[in-house]
């Protein structure tokens, strides 16, 4: 038992996995950042579409959001990577497919964040804006959006963390992100414990500070 522990501590695999962690995490972060960035653009559009009085715009956005939120991102990735390419002859590179999957997936959740953020602003703000003569779009731009965006920061940060974790499933469409590389390591060495501990740490190193920062922001916004 005690010997086992010392063996474990001295295991070479802690160090040996490090290069893979580094390389994989870089790709993980890259996909997440770029994916969430485009997800924000998609989400803002879809979020405003959900606030629209135009039934068609509202309907299209709703279908998109519900389809995405109703299915696992793994299935979305499989669909995008395999089914779409077969049926429409579009072949994304694996990393591109990963970025698209994150953007499309995060976009649906961000749409709801945007809608919720805008709706959370007290109706009185809009009325005050309109009553000094601002147009509807000026009111959105100068009054509602700046306040709404501030409130959206914590849930957006949270979506970033979710998307970061979601990239782990891209192991199955062969994106060389961190989970993929560490599984490779496990397959090649038949050692499981150390690599998976290191893999968990790789995520925690990003997510825990991110969560702490978010909580701090949230607290400041509350006051």
């Amino acid at each position, binding site marked *: 038992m005690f010997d086992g522990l010392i063996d474990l501590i001295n295991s070479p695999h802690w160090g*040996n996995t490090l*290069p*893979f962690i580094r*390389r994989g995490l870089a790709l993980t972060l890259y996909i997440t950042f770029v994916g969430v960035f485009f997800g924000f653009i998609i989400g803002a559009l879809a979020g405003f579409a959900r606030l629209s009085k135009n039934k068609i715009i509202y309907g299209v956005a709703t279908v998109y959001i519900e389809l995405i939120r109703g299915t696992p991102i793994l299935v979305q990735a499989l669909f995008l*990577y*395999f*089914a779409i*390419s*077969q049926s429409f*002859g579009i*072949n994304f590179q*694996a990393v591109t497919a990963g970025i698209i999957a994150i953007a499309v997936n995060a976009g649906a959740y961000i749409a709801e964040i945007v809608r919720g953020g805008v709706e959370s602003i007290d109706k009185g703000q809009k009325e005050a804006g309109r009553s000094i003569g601002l147009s509807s779009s000026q009111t959105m731009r100068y009054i509602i959006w700046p306040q709404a965006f501030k409130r959206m920061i914590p849930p957006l940060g949270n979506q970033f963390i979710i998307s970061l974790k979601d990239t782990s499933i891209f*192991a*199955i*469409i*062969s994106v*060389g992100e961190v989970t*993929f*590389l560490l*599984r*490779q*390591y*496990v*397959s*090649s*060495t*038949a050692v*499981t414990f150390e690599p998976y501990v290191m893999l968990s740490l790789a995520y925690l190193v990003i997510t825990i500070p991110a969560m702490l920062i978010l909580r701090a922001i949230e607290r400041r916004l509350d006051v």
Partner: protein
Amino acid sequence: ACGDDEVTVATDTNYVPFEFMNTETGEMEGFDIDLIYEIADRVGFEINLEVVEFDGILAGMETGRYDIGIAGMTITEDRAKVFDFSDPYYDAGLVLAVRADEEEIQSIDDVDGRPVATRAATTSEDYLVENTDAEVRLFPDIVNAYQDLIAGRVDAVIYDVPNVLYYIETEALGEMKTVGDLLTGEQYGIAFPADSELRAQVNEALAEMKEDGTYGDIYEKWFGERP
């Protein structure tokens, strides 16, 4: 495809000694890898290597996502209906593996009703389903099946003989053994989407390599003997 075209080659995440990641360098290596790079040299294309789980390679070949698939892939009738194979380049077969201290399972006839693991989407899965009444456990990664065997969660693994032997030798000496005869004879081929122009060129290169001994050199490097 000629000149310096980039060709997307799908290979398996882990199938020793045909393809696997070298944990020192982080690069993929193995018999298949050496072979395809040599072929690429001869035919004259650049390789864009995509490392995919085995069922993903099949799906990708079927959908035309990849230009070439090389993954110790057995040539089967079903697969040949949807995509094309090169000439055979390696002879293998399936074998049953059990824990080193296993006494009850002596051959494939003893696995009925017991949990037996293999890898999803492979010829081993087909064999198990068609020829036994075993309780089939499927993993995307064959190493997980071996680990389940050693952990005692399954009683046997059935898989391609070169991989089983190589794994026993490198990772599981004294923990795993093979029992019974070779269950099937199989031949590996390189996969192409239907009607690919590359196929003829690759076949030509392969024949050349067998001719001039390059194939034998690579074979010896990975299997310790010449074909």
